[in-house]
């Protein structure tokens, strides 16, 4: 049953990674303009 220790550890690391990415995206302002982001995909890049 020792395998459960690895599994718990692995699930926590994966989950924690997801949480960290979410907090990072929040901090970098990716949630500040949800409406604009949907439209931005239609813009042509100039360069």
């Amino acid at each position, binding site marked *: *049953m020792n395998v459960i220790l690895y599994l718990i550890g692995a699930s926590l690391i994966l*989950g924690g990674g997801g949480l960290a990415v979410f907090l990072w995206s929040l901090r970098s302002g990716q949630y500040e303009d949800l409406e604009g982001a949907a439209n931005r995909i*239609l813009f042509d890049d100039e360069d």
Partner: protein
Amino acid sequence: MRADGAHELSLAVDGLQCGACVWLIESVLAREPIVLQGRVNMTTRRLRLVWRGATEQAGTLVGLIERLGYRLIPFDPASLSAAEEETGRTLLRALAVAGFAAVNVMLMSIGIWAGEVGGLLHDMGPATRDLLHWVSALIAMPAIAYAGRPFFASAAAALRHGRTNMDVPISVGVILVTGMSLVQTMQGGAHTYFDSAITLLFFLLIGRFLDHRARGQARATAEQMLALRVADVAVLQADGSTRRRNQHSVAPDDRIIVGLGERIGVDGVVERGTSTLDASLVTGESLPVQAMPGTQVFAGTLNLGAALTVRAVATGSATLLAECVRLIEAAEARRSRFVVLADRVARRYAPAVHLAALLTFLWWFFIAGASAGEALLIACAVLIITCPCALALAVPVVQVIATSGLFRMGVLLKSATALERLDDVDTIVFDKTGTLTEPNLTLVRGSDFDEQALRVAASLAASSRHPLARSLLAAAGPVAAAEGVVEFPGEGLRAGDVWLGRNPSWPGLTRPSGADRVCVDGRVKPGHDDREGPELWLARPNHAPVRFKFEETLREDAAATVSRLRERGLEIHLLSGDRAASVARIATALGIDDWHAECSPVQKVAAIEALVSAGRTVLMVGDGLNDSPSLAAATVSASPATAADVSQTVADVVFQGSRLGPVAIVLATARRARTVMRQNLALSIGYNMLMVPLAVAGLVTPWLAAAAMSSSSLLVMANSFRLHGRRT
């Protein structure tokens, strides 16, 4: 100015429609070599501009955008609800942490429960179970400490003031249950409730975050509308030149030039010039009033005539604005604090729940002979079961759905409790000018003129910014502008030998008769406004002068809305600062029996407070500065988006567009929302009635608690969404 030598500016963008506008603005800015960043936020309609070089370059850049047809208004991002945004971000972070912890703890718990039910796969040894409990504890406890802060802080604040709110039972429940589960874990016991505690917080945070977002959006939009109206004023410099300045940076004794068709930006005294002013937004007076040197004028007044020089006075105690602000404060102090439905329930619910848990503990410990640990365990199960998860979701989820539904229809609910206060409304008091009527005057159709005369007049009017000229143009439809039109400010327009003005002949022929400038000893004589309404004359060679009369018109759906409201059993009153004749005309047209004219702001407040103290729940709908104190005095208040700044700030509801219908819609929505809220409360209390006896009897296990709690929360949310489906 930033540390790296670049400059930064935040601007509100007016006229932003779609993604293409964003693209246009950004690509124009990107072509400028000095611009480091120009990014439009479409949700908040703001442009953030960062550039290198001189500060003065800002003007060039702003000019580029304005040439595209957008208006840009600088604002101070720090002053605009920075605290609000921070709260939103804190809630979202807490929500993320709680969600992460809830999922992981639930994974452990399912393992434990599977083992408990009798070994679906293998029997689980106590050592494995303890391990899973410890891991749960290590995940859940820091997460609860972090994600629970919004609730703990609010509960502590309520308790400090000797009150209880919904957060008190939540906090007590969560803290007690977590502590008890920790003790169980340390003793190697079987019953821990970490999963319930953290899931509870997760659900509650969802409700709170949605609530915050919906209201924050409405409030931000309302603020934005006001920010867009901040106009700059032309300040006269010592050398005789003028400079445009923001109206908030005007100092007392500055001289301000107010052109034709411009709104006076500050309170002041007329120093030079004679003109007519439209003060409908300030005093509710629908007819223009005369202004001459010495006349006191108020910010928000529209200049209909010649340019005026106004000396700004300090916003001291003497101005109308200051008086209104004083009245607002007094009215708000007198108004009894409204207690939110959820808090009213919580006030009775929290003590009952805590008493039940205590009695359960005492019964098991003293009478049933259980050990202290076992008795505490059962008491905690009671707390978990009664923890008002569904109860705390019952009201906010409905509010979010109703608020966002109204928001899409252009109705901004600014106050959190407005929806509940609106439901009880049995009396509506309307203001007349600008509320029941259109903000602009319209042409009276009649036998006075023929279509041909109207077209000639409109071709002259096309080149003027005067409000009456614009109304004339609007009535005539598309007309080619006449050439060579000369405007005589305050008098009229001339093209060749055709004249359109406030007198039947143009000033070059005869001097104005002065018929409507009745002055005695330099003061406006009372009764100068016994005309029926403002008018324009068209004079052409070989034609008799033609008169165009203007009057205020009802909003297009005013009659329909008022009769719809009356059918619902609401009592309609009309309180106006305007003259009796105009008020009587409107009241008769709408069939309102109960009307009062020539009310001062103080009288309006008194009338409203009399209604309130007679036990009525009053909705006040008004737009003028003179209405603002009565808006504050009423139980709940609404303003059109064209209202004076102060009124919009005071009002609980701001509706956009030119129709009055939103008033009826908002009342109907409030009524439906209140019904769903009551159903939700009944559902969650019903669930408690069902589960509490089981918990008291000691029959509730952790998995049953978690399942029951989640399902009741989901049930309440599902019921709330019915409001969305039935929206008209």
